[in-house]
C-alpha cells in the first residue's frame, strides 16, 4: 500500500526515463482524439454558448497537456510555470479587456460608416 505508492512517487521524482517515450506517445494520441472531438462538436445541434464553452474547454485541456508534459513543466521547478503563467494571464487578461471594450455598446461602429 504505502510502499508501492512510495516507489511510484520515487519513479516520478527522478523522471521516469523509460516511461517518458511511452507517455509522450500516449498524450499525442489523446490530443489527436480531442481534436477529433472538437471538430465533431461544431456540427452538434446545441446552443452556441454550450458549444463555445466546450470548445474553449477542450482547447484549454490540449494547451495544458502540451505545456505540462511536452514542455516538461510538470517536472521542472515551479518558477518556470509561474514565469510562463504571468505572460499567459497578462495576455489573456488584455485580450479579455479589449474584447469587453470593443463589445460595449459605445464601441459599435456607426451604421452609416464606410458602407
Amino acid at each position, binding site marked *: 500500500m504505502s510502499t508501492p505508492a512510495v516507489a511510484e512517487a520515487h519513479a516520478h521524482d527522478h523522471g521516469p526515463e523509460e516511461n517518458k517515450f511511452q507517455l509522450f506517445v500516449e498524450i499525442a494520441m489523446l490530443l489527436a482524439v480531442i481534436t477529433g472531438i472538437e471538430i465533431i462538436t461544431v456540427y452538434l445541434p446545441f446552443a452556441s454558448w454550450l458549444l463555445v464553452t466546450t470548445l474553449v474547454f477542450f482547447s484549454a485541456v490540449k494547451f495544458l497537456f502540451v505545456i505540462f508534459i511536452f514542455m516538461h513543466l510538470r517536472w521542472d521547478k515551479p*518558477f518556470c510555470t509561474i514565469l510562463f503563467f*504571468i*505572460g499567459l494571464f*497578462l495576455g489573456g*487578461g*488584455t485580450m479579455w*479587456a*479589449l474584447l*469587453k*471594450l470593443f463589445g*460595449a*455598446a*459605445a*464601441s459599435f*461602429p456607426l451604421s452609416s*460608416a*464606410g458602407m
Partner: protein
Amino acid sequence: MADALAKSGFIGKDDGHAAPKTFVLWRPTAKTGLMGWLTTVDHKRIGFLYGISALTFFLIGGIEALLIRTQLIVPNNHFLSAQQYNEMFTMHATTMIFLAIMPLSAAFFNFIMPLQIGARDVAFPRLNAFSYWVFLAGAIIVNLGWFMKDGAPNGGWFGYTPLTTKLFSPNHAIDMWVMGLQLLGVASIAASLNFIITIINLRAPGMTMMRLPVFTWMTLVTAFLLVLAFPAITIALVELMMDRLFGTNFFEVSNGGMPILWTHLFWVFGHPEVYILILPGMGVISEILPTFSRKPLFGYPIVVFSGASIGFLGFGVWSHHMFTTGLGTMGTAAFALTTMVIAVPTGVKIFNWIGTLWGGHISMRTPMLFALGFIWMFMLGGFSGVMHAAAPADAEQHNSYFVVAHFHYVLIGGSLFSLLAGIHYWFPLMFGRKVSEFWGKLSFWIVFCGFNITFFPMHFLGLNGMPRRTFTYDHNMGWDTGNMIATIGAFILGIGVAVYFVVMIYTYFKGERTYKDPWDARTLEWSLPCPPPEYNYRVIPTVHARDNWWYEKHHQEEIAKENAEHEEAEEAHGGIHMPFQSIYPFIAALGILIGAIGVAVIDPDPGPGLIGKKLAVSIIGFLIFFVAVCLWSLEGNEGYHIHPKKDE
C-alpha cells in the same frame, strides 16, 4: 560556489586564451581602441556605452525642446513652421523617452545590477552587447529623417492613426519612425530577458530575493514590464506597417478597419512604458536615501511589494489615456477606478522614503539634494496624475497643457532627477572620481528652479484652455504671460543642464580621486575598488543580510576568513572564468539596421525597378543578420581563466 561552477554541465569550458579556431571563429582580444569597444561583452563597458548614448540624445532632445519653447515664447510666432513644429514635438518626445531616459536607466541596470548581486557579468554577455548595438541602430533610424528629404517623423510620439496611415502621411518619415521603434523594441526585450535571467539565476550565495538591493528589485520589475508591454506596440507597429506597405485594412475605415484599435494597442504598451520610465529612478532613490540618512530603508518588504504592484497594476489602466474617446460608461468607470488604485502603492513608497529619512543622520550631499527634489517634484506630478484619474475632470484636462505639466513633473521631477542623482552617486564607483560638492549643488539648484519655472505655469495654461501640439496661439487667449515665463524657465533649465554636463566632463578628467566606498554606503557594489576590475569580484561574496556591504564592514574578521576560504576554492578550480569577446553581436545588429532601413524605404507603388533595389537591401540586411547569428552560435560560449594577483 566555485565547486558548483566547475561541476555545471551548462557552462562552456576553458578554451585557452583566445585560441584561434577557424578563420571566422577567432575570438577578439583587444581591450582598447575601436575593436575593443565593438567586441566588448563586459557589462560595465556596455553600461558606459548606453550612458554616453543616452546623454548625447538627451542633449539633442533638449535642443528640440528649446526650439519648441522658442516658437511658443510669443503668440503668432514664425520661428518654426507648423510642419517643423510637428517634427519637433514628435522627436523631442521620442528622443527623451526612448533614446535618453530608457538607455540611461539601462546604463545603470548594466553597470550596477550585476555588482549588487555579486555576479561577474550578466547571464548572456553577447546578447547584452547585441542589445546595445540594436538600440543604437534604432536610434539612428529614428533620427535619419533629419537628413532626408521626407523629414523627421511628425505624427507625435504616439503615432495615432489615421494620421499616420499612408493616406495622410504619404512619405517615408513615419516608416522610419515605425522601423526605428521596432528595433528599439527588439533591443529592450533582448536586454530585459538578460536582466531577468541574471537577477533570478546569478545571485551570489546567500543572496535571497528579499536581500536584493531595491535598485535590483526595480530592475527586475522593469525588465518584466518591458518584455510584457513591448509586444503590444510591436503588433500595433506591424499592423500599421502592413497598412502602409501592403494596403491591408487594420486602420482603413472604408474597408471595416477601426483607427481606435491603434490607440488601444499603443496605450496597452504606453502605460506600462511610463512605469518603465519611473521605476528604475525609484530604485535609485531607494539606494540613495538610506546611504545619506545612515539608516536602512524603511519598510523594505513593502517598498518591494509596492514596486511589483505598480508594475502589475500598470497593465490595467491604459484607457485612462482615452477617457474622451467614448469608451462607454462601464469602460470609463473601470479604468478610472484602476487608475486611482495604482496611486496607492506609489503613495506607500513615498511614505516609506520619508520614514527612511525620519530620525536619520542626514548628509546633504548632491545625490541627496536630487533625491529630496525627486520626492517633492514626483509628488506634485502624482497629484496632477490623480486629478486626471477622475474621468470627468480629465474631460477638461485631456489634450491641454495640464497634461504636459503633469508628465513633465513626473518625468523630469521624477525620472530625470533620480537618474541625475544616480550619476552623482555612482560616478565615483564608475570612474574613480568624485564630483565637486559646490558645482554639483549649483547645477541642482539651477535645474530645479528652471524646471519649476518652466512647468508650473503650464498647469494654469492647461486649465485656461491651451491645447497641446499646436504650433502657435493667438494673443488674446490670455496665454501670453504663461508661455513667456515657461520659455524663460526652459532656458534656465538648459543652463542648469549645461552646467551639470560641464561639471561631469571636467570631473571625469580632473576630478578628485576616490578609491573605495567614498559615501560609506550599504550595498555590495561599494565593496569593490573604484573603478572595479574587469572581473568585478576577486572572490564571490557570501551574503549574510540585506545591505550586505554594511554587514561586511561590521563583521570584518568573519568576512576575511570566509573570503580566504573561497579564494582557495576558486584557485583550485582554475581561477576566474571570463567570457570571450565577440564581433558577431555588432555584425548582427548591423544586418538588422540595413534590413530595417530597406523595409522603411520600400514604396508600395514604386517606379520601375525601384522596389527590386530596395527589397534587395532588406534581403541583404537580413542575410547578414542570419549569417552573424549562425556564427555567433557556432563560436560557442567558452571562455578563458584569469588569476588576479592578491593585491589587485
